[in-house]
């Protein structure tokens, strides 16, 4: 609590709100009777992208992964690049909702619901790529432990099998955490909805929640425990993702710095995505009094800090390549910086290392358009990072006779952009039907603000 004393920070919620006004404000849009035309236009655009995705998947199912740009030696390509990119984006949601809760960062309350939804949808997009990469998606159950007629089991020593369990657990626990957080707000929507149909649907999912003090007690305990479970989970998931690479012996992958550097990179890209989405959301819904400049400032600072860890990762990777004296590692580093993919490497350094340094300036952190551009740059930079890691390591490994070049086909691009369509379609539906800011937690914040120091902390 020390941070509350020394700096006169701006409030988390703008003054002038009471329980009734925040409840009204935050539940207004999901309960609008007529869907606004602007929402429909946006939804149509992202839905068309989703249809592109479905088309690409149908063609893939019929013709197989030969339509993609993958070859031998670059057998991973877009599928794994996008998998890592999406799952990394998801991690900021868990960080905001779980880790910041444990650290009692009350500012998280205005953004955690939205960030959790983002996590859920990003994990859904991520999980699709390994399935698509199988080529025969309907045989996905081969990777699960089930009593098959050959008596075979998954190979437990393989990080790819760990990945199945990690991503499945992460998806389920994120869904559970998000739903538990929603229960009281669903009850609010049930009680505020006027149309019987809406009342019934919200009421069904609210489970008959009636805000009893005895219920709240158990609820709060569970919520805190889920945060405690989600915190090591998020670290483990991206560690396991990084082990997909690090456990192999490919130059540029076989390095112990991967787990921490991947986790930091995941949070870096996730915060960039939260900002990319929340800045437009804030201005469209006029949530400036709930998502204040303090939130933007804090998120930008976390982005800057994790960005520096990522930059340190890049530096150490190359230092160790040189210091190890290993020919293949040294060649891999030189090839990244000066080889056929050098342009992308330097673009990555520009987007992920150079541009984020602007966040040292308070003006950039609190000016919406500047922050938005930096966030976009990081989103793109983190995608490039995965491209560089996957492609440059694979395309030239030990034997020059097996070297080859990789380039994505239009099917790769359609699948990738298509998952952005899926992600945004789900987000559009989410903001239309559910409160994108946690209403009961903001109510709590509004009540506690004037005498925050005097009352015992909740949880």
């Amino acid at each position, binding site marked *: 609590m020390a941070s509350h004393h020394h700096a006169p920070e701006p409030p988390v919620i703008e003054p002038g709100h009471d*329980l009734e006004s925040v409840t009204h404000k935050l539940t207004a849009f999901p309960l609008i009777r007529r869907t606004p035309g602007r929402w429909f236009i946006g939804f149509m655009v992202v839905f068309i992208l989703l249809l592109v995705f479905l088309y690409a998947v149908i063609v893939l199912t019929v013709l197989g992964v030969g339509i993609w740009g993958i070859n031998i030696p670059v057998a991973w390509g877009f599928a794994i690049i996008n998998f890592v990119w999406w799952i990394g984006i998801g991690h900021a949601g868990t960080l905001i909702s779980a880790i910041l809760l444990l650290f009692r960062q009350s500012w998280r309350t205005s953004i955690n619901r939205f960030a959790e939804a983002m996590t859920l949808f990003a994990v859904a997009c991520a999980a699709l790529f390994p399935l698509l990469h199988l080529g025969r998606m309907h045989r996905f159950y081969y990777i699960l432990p089930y009593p098959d007629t050959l008596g075979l*089991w998954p190979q437990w020593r393989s990080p790819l099998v760990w990945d199945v369990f990690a991503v499945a657990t992460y998806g389920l*626990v994120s869904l559970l955490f998000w739903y538990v957080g929603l229960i009281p707000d669903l009850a609010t929507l049930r009680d505020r909805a006027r149309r019987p149909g809406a009342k019934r649907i919200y009421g069904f999912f609210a*489970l008959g929640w009636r805000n009893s*003090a005895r219920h709240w007690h158990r609820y709060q305990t*569970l919520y805190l425990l889920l945060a405690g479970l989600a915190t090591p989970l998020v670290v*483990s998931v991206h560690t396991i993702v990084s082990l997909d690479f690090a456990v192999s012996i490919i130059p540029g992958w076989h390095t112990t710095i991967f787990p921490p550097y991947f986790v930091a990179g995941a949070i870096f890209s996730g915060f960039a995505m939260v900002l990319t989405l929340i800045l437009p959301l804030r201005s469209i819904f006029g949530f400036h009094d709930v998502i204040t400049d303090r939130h933007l400032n804090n998120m930008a600072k976390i982005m800057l800090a994790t960005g520096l860890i990522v930059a340190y990762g890049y530096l150490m990777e190359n230092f160790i390549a040189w210091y190890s004296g290993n020919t293949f590692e040294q060649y891999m580093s030189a090839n990244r910086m000066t080889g056929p993919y050098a342009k992308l490497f330097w673009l990555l350094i520009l987007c992920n290392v150079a541009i984020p340094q602007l966040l040292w300036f308070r003006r950039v952190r609190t000016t919406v358009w500047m922050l938005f551009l930096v966030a976009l740059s990081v989103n793109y930079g983190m995608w490039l990072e995965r491209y560089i890691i996957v492609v440059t390591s694979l395309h030239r490994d030990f034997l020059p006779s097996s070297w080859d070049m990789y380039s994505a086909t239009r099917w790769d691009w359609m699948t990738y952009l298509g998952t952005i369509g899926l992600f945004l379609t789900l987000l559009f539906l989410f903001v239309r039907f559910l409160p994108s800011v946690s209403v009961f937690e903001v*109510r709590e914040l509004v009540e506690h603000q004037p005498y925050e120091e005097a009352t015992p902390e909740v*949880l």
Partner: protein
Amino acid sequence: MHAVPMEQSESLYGLLAEYADASTLVAASRRVREEGYTVFDAYTPYPVAALDEAMAIQPTRIPMWVLLGALIGGVTAYGMQYYAAVIDYPWNVGGKPLHSWPAFIPITFELAVLGGALFGLIAMIVKNRLPEPYHPLFDVPAFDQASQHAFFLCIEASDPRFDREQTRQFLQALGAKEVTEVVA
């Protein structure tokens, strides 16, 4: 069949009192408990921590359930891997020991987390007796506001000390804005 303190209370779920804010409600709850009432509950639009102490809510055993779920998940995961790699299909992979325990840790950890989270959720739902789509309180029109901005306290008719008139006066004396009879 069983004894009912007053004959009217057969049709009564309890008395619902509305209080102006959280601190009045906390003070009222404390007095209600001190007066000897045991079957009562408060309803608030957000979790009010001070109520736990004022109402003497017993610590929940949900942490135990989470621990149990985590243990079951972890033991199952490790057991499955051990059984598959050592007993059911022993196969030498690159000279690694059959029981290569460090490689079994990630899945053990993931399933422990999953088990803990699922057991915790189920424990919370079951102990709160959810889902409960109908409750007598939902028949009180003003109770809609418990999920928005109003603070309620309900002493139930099944409380041994419950008395339709005296309890009403008591709740009113504690500063209630309004006391409503809740039909069972």
